[in-house]
């Protein structure tokens, strides 16, 4: 057991996105200025806005390519668990995690050796993939009563038989992490972070602390989300937060742009492999980046389901991460942002970056994924971190898709063309309309 905090490095990252499996697919798609936002099939096409960025490949086909155990059958997973399993499997391959085939099992998972020092923190939500079944269930058990309606309990036992027992287990909000514990042979700390797009960055930040607290040497950490999902689309439509159904889907995701009309449904997940630097060195792992610092800050919205009172919470989260990392704003080469594509929220976020970056605000690229893949909930921060690490490695930063006419207060660059840039230090920032903000600082190895 070590007695002082060791450095924490990232030795692998995995992504599942509407561009397919792998961070490369997402990064290359973004570099090419492509979007995967398109019209959705019925019945989802009837849910506002009727379009979104969805992963089209069948889960079984994707999971077959990845490290997984016999428990990892798509039938045992909701969409969230599938996204988590895919992103983690991709990250394990990317990190060259040793994979075994012990005890005659057909599973392809890490050996038990070292499992007590491995853990997993994953941010996700819970939503049944069978939302339509819940609608039908609710319809089955409702009955007229006097002038109103009431649930007829006598119908419930019959209606519940339309579900299988496993559908209720799958629905538990810790299931992505439970699968990850098995997939990654983790016998260390394992936990799920819920709610808000900041959850993925929070999970990574807490995993960083778990290593520094000596609870583990290796942590799988990240987040997943799907808002191309009946329930989430219903909620967004009800709250008036969806993008307009009357715009071209390919042009709907417009972070920091005046013509943005609201949230574009999307889905995806990102997972990082964090390791104690000495552990990574001992196994000869390739270090993709060093995780220098983490920060979070909550500032309550001004009203229930309203907007944050200003950029203060986001700025404080970022400054805490920068302070932990021991860096100044002048050292930041690239920022990854939420860029929800909601003009009011984006204006608050833009003001935050202007305050953080000061005179350099006009030159530091502000990367947002939402124009390409929509709102990926808790997946967005880890996915952005993976893209940022590829930008560090390859010196190319994707351009700013659909940001032709930036909102007032946005002082950053807005060029659709990719940039050639020496990216050494990245601020990964996720601010949310719920008021929870989280940030990471990543540095290129040797920078």
């Amino acid at each position: 057991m070590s007695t002082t905090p060791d450095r924490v490095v990232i030795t692998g990252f995995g992504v599942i996105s509407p561009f397919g499996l792998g961070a490369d697919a997402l990064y290359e798609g973004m570099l090419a200025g492509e979007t995967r936002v398109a019209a959705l099939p019925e019945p989802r096409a009837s849910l506002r806005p009727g379009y979104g960025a969805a992963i089209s490949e069948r889960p079984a086909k994707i999971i077959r390519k990845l490290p997984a155990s016999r428990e990892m059958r798509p039938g045992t997973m909701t969409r969230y668990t599938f996204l988590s399993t895919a992103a983690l499997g991709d990250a394990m391959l990317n990190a060259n995690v040793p994979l075994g085939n012990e005890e005659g099992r057909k599973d392809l998972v890490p050996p038990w050796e070292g499992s007590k020092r491995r853990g997993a923190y994953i941010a996700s939500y819970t939503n049944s993939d069978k939302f339509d079944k819940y609608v039908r269930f609710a319809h089955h058990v409702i009955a007229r009563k006097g002038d109103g309606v009431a649930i007829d309990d006598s119908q419930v036992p019959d209606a519940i038989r339309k579900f299988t027992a496993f559908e209720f287990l799958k629905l538990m909000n810790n299931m992505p992490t439970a699968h990850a514990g098995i997939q990654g042979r983790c016998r260390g700390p394992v936990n799920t972070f819920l709610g808000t797009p900041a959850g993925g960055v929070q999970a990574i930040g807490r995993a960083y602390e778990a290593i520094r607290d000596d609870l583990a040497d290796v942590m799988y950490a990240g987040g997943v989300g799907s808002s191309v999902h009946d329930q989430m689309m219903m909620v967004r439509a009800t709250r008036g937060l969806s993008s307009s159904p009357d715009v071209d889907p390919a042009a709907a995701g417009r972070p920091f742009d005046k013509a943005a009309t609201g949230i574009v449904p999307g889905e995806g997940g990102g997972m990082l492999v964090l390791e104690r630097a000495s552990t990574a060195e001992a196994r000869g792992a390739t270090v993709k980046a060093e995780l220098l610092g983490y920060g979070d800050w909550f500032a309550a919205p001004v009203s229930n389901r309203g907007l944050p009172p200003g950029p203060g919470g986001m700025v404080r989260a970022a400054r805490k991460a920068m302070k932990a990392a021991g860096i100044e704003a002048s050292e930041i080469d690239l920022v990854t942002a939420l860029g929800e594509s909601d003009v009011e929220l984006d204006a608050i976020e833009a003001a935050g970056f202007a305050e953080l970056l000061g005179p350099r605000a006009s030159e530091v690229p502000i990367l947002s994924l939402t124009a390409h893949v929509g709102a990926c909930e808790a997946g967005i921060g880890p996915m952005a971190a993976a893209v940022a690490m590829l930008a560090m490695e390859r010196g190319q930063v994707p351009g700013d898709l659909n940001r032709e006419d930036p909102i007032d207060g946005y002082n950053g660059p807005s060029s659709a063309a990719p940039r050639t840039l020496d990216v050494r230090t990245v601020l990964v920032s996720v601010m949310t309309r719920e008021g929870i903000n989280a940030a990471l600082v990543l540095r290129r190895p040797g920078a």
Partner: protein
Amino acid sequence: MSRARVVVTGLGVVVPHGDDIDAVYGRISRGENECGRITKFDPDGFLCQIGSEVKYDVEAPEQVGPYTVHNEALRFVVGAADRAIRYAGLEAATGDEQDRRSIVLSTGVGPANIDFLGPIALRLHGDDSDPYTSDMASFYAKAPDEPEAAGLDEFHLDTAAPACAVLLGAAHVHNTASACASGSHAIADAAAIIARGEADVALAGGVCTPVTRVLVPGFAMLQALSTRNDDPAHASRPFDAGRDGFVMGEGAAVMVLESEEHAKARGATILAELAGWGYSCDAYRLTDPQPEGEGMALCMTRALESAGVRPDQVDHVNAHGTSTPYNDRAETLAIKKALGDHAYKTAVSSNKSMFGHLIHAAGALEGCLSVKTILEGVIPPTINYTDADPLCDLDYVPNEGREAKVDVILKNSFGFGGMNVSVVYRRYEG
């Protein structure tokens, strides 16, 4: 690496036995049961008809900052948090002090969607339509504009942790879940945050309202719940040979944790020390614990090591003790692995025998009761224990509370998916 000493200074509950922790502990230590036939809906014909419900009006702030406390789960958790903060004698922090306060809250799901979807479906599809052939596209096109649809937004209980943060004046909010281990997990995570110097004060715990028309029959289909419908008061019987599953319970429980230095500086009453915590994962199966209890034993050992406590110093194990055949057998094996021969000399009891399983709130409620056990000196019993299971052969404090000087309690919480957490509560000696 030095770490700050973590102490407990406040407790708050809204649970089936009541909303005053002192009174709740009194009832629990006397072995009073709150499991019974479900009253929130008519469970006639349900596979499981048993629950443990909050049957009284819960007093809670109706508005917390921007958050309207408009559903039952929110009322439970905001009520519990309000009580814990007052118990600790704290006010909401302002300014830079907020940076030194944290929330770690575990939440299940909120109001059942069917309550909102049913009326919409009936209205849009008509009284005589067949639910199973109705057109979803037309439903989706119109449903978001129906007034009840706004209720769907409450399903994830997203505002529970932020509302608690406003009550405490906390700048750091974590909403976590590890199924049945969640409540203890939140407490352990909050303790770690204080121990490493990141915060001076943290509020941690959980809330769950699973006694619903969907989750009760759903978990009964998983064969997780007791179906002793003809005798609901005796349905939750951890470690008893006749156990056949757990009873769903509802409620919220939280505690205020502080660094010892902060608590002493403000003259707070220190209730107990949160001396250590340990985590592990079985990495085994989604539904079953590792049958030899290896993961459970690992997290108990880790908690004891974290606390600097030898196994023979443990006076009492507040067990996870769900009343399922698998858990109780595996937990018994695990306790023996972790404590060795001392396991047979240790009082092990399951509070769940009296209020069932509060899922995300279970570990937090049982943690609050553990603190009270140290203070009051009566170990709550495992009620409904009548027939010994040869595979569960420890001292389960059967049926009657036991007076004892209790200095060290090992609290276990184990979740579906193999997530395990143990917490060590110790008598505070300054």
